[in-house]
């Protein structure tokens, strides 16, 4: 465990492995939490059986979360959910029915099931979201996940780490989404391929946990294995008040070796969007005000949390969504949904002319509740704007944070929130 100074990724791997956690090494690691969703869970269950698996390694640390095509959109997705549900019940592993769950990456942190210092493996690429808690969390496919369910272990190549330092303090118009899109625009969509991003600086200290979840969520959009936030008082308060078990927060050592350092001034970052068809096509929203839109989606594992929904609601209070625009709002969990009810946000949305739906991944990856037709364009608070991601291959997605999304819903074109709020 001792030896040369470690980055946070190296420190977490070292604490979970008997192997030497130096960049490039392949280490066998113990896994603290492992889960799959309705797309990856049923095939993971099949692979688990092929492996000769009888019981998951720890039923309190393994979960099945049906969130992508739920409430089920068609017969095929209902069959898929049924298979996932039956496996989960048979195993006695963690499982919650529709109406009591949410988008996996919003729900699991709320439940205190993923915690600082953990290694979390999920059969979903946005598992990296829990990096906001200082957990080394990363996505795998269903066969890898089945192996974790069986063994409680997996192999990880120890990543090199890019230190990202945000100086300054972001303005009130700028949040985690603007910061992370700006970074991906800087380093490119494979700028962190196989690597860990480790976030530091006054611009990060100023951010809410929800903004940090947004940023960690999109580490994968730079190709990253994980995006890690060394825990601070905000992290520990969040985790302590929710923890389902004990945890040990870990930190990077002074003098750790970084493969590179990237510096940005959070105070200079403006409301930013990512234009089609890559999350790295970053551009200030105010330079895109001639782009006319048909739809706005506010939700997803990227921006469907309390702060996101609250900011969007306040921006829309007493206003009307543009006549030409469809606004879909989907709180990412029932905790968020209940807060939105208590604080009157749902009423603000519906009075503004928005559609508000039950927690689900929904239209983010072209599942349901807001698919795009040929030629349509959507401002979305989700994480990917790939060709065909939300529908027709000739539709377009512009990624943005909740304030740009709400402002754009009001005007019917991509809009910097400072223009209308």
């Amino acid at each position, binding site marked *: 465990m001792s030896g040369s100074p470690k980055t946070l990724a190296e420190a977490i791997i070292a604490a979970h492995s008997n192997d030497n956690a130096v960049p490039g090494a392949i280490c066998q690691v113990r896994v603290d939490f492992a889960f799959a969703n309705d797309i990856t869970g049923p095939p993971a269950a099949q692979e688990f059986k092929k*492996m*000769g698996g009888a019981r998951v390694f720890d039923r309190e640390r393994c979960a099945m979360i049906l969130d992508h095509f739920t409430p089920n959109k068609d017969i095929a997705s209902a069959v898929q959910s049924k298979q996932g549900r039956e496996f989960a019940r048979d195993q006695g592993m963690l499982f919650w029915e529709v109406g009591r769950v949410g988008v996996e990456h919003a729900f699991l942190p709320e439940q205190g099931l993923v915690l600082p210092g953990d290694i979390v493996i999920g059969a979903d690429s946005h598992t990296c979201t829990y990096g906001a808690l200082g957990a080394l969390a990363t*996505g*795998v*496919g269903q066969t*890898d996940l089945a192996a974790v369910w069986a063994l409680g272990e997996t192999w990880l190549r120890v990543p090199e780490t890019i230190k990202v330092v945000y100086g300054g303090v972001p303005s009130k118009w700028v949040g985690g989404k603007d910061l992370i899109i700006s970074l991906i625009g800087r380093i490119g*969509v*494979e700028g962190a391929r196989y690597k860990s991003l480790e976030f530091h600086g006054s611009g990060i200290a100023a951010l809410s946990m929800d903004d940090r979840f947004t940023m960690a969520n999109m580490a994968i959009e730079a*190709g990253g294995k994980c995006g890690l936030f060394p825990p601070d008082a905000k992290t520990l308060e969040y985790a302590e008040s929710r923890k389902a078990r004990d945890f040990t927060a870990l930190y990077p050592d002074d003098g750790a070796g970084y493969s590179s350092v990237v510096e940005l001034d959070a105070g200079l970052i403006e409301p930013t969007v990512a234009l089609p068809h890559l999350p790295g096509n970053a551009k200030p929203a105010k330079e895109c005000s001639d782009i006319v839109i048909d739809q706005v989606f506010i939700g997803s594992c990227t921006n469907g949390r309390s702060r996101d929904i609250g900011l969007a609601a306040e921006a829309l209070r007493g206003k009307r969504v543009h006549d030409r625009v469809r606004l879909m709002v989907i709180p990412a969990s029932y905790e968020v949904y209940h807060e939105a009810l208590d604080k009157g946000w749902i009423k603000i949305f519906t009075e503004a002319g928005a559609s508000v739906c039950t927690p689900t991944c929904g239209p983010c990856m*072209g599942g349901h509740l807001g698919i795009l037709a040929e030629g349509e364009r959507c401002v979305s608070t989700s994480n990917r704007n790939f060709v065909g991601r939300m529908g027709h291959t000739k539709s377009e997605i512009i990624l943005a944070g909740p304030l740009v999304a709400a402002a754009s819903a009001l005007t019917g074109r991509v809009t910097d929130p400072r223009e209308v709020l």
Partner: protein
Amino acid sequence: MSGSAFEKISGRAWVYGDNVDTDVIIPARYLTTSAPELLAPHCMEDIDPAFAGGVRPGDIIVAGGNFGCGSSREHAPIAIKASGVSCVIAMSFARIFFRNAINIGLPILECPEIAAAKGDEIEVDLKMGIIRNNTSGRDFSSNPIPEFLQSLFTVGGLVPYVRERLGAQS
């Protein structure tokens, strides 16, 4: 891998650029199944609608950097393998796709120098990591696969590896 990792293979090249994401390899609208025979007809549909109808057994996908970026869906390498593709050669791979391909036994080679045009005849010696473009006459060598992953190949992939370990435990 069922022994396929150490064979020589050859086929026609299907050539794509950088950042081919898993949404275009197999769009989410088809993810209500993971059955290979149902995924294959839609493989590459959103980047190259002619692929599924034109691909022949043994053909090889040649691509730029960051191949397979995006979603963790193992359905992407499953669809490629089920379409008959014998090997994917890319300048680099996104990490989840890399793991998934190895786990399901789809041969992949990382080769930063690879150059090919659509339809070129490509020959690959998987054991040696040597790629020959018979149309252009150029040879390329691929980056070596880490030792632990080679040992996964040797036992036939992740499923038999875990079977063996669970058997040893009981």
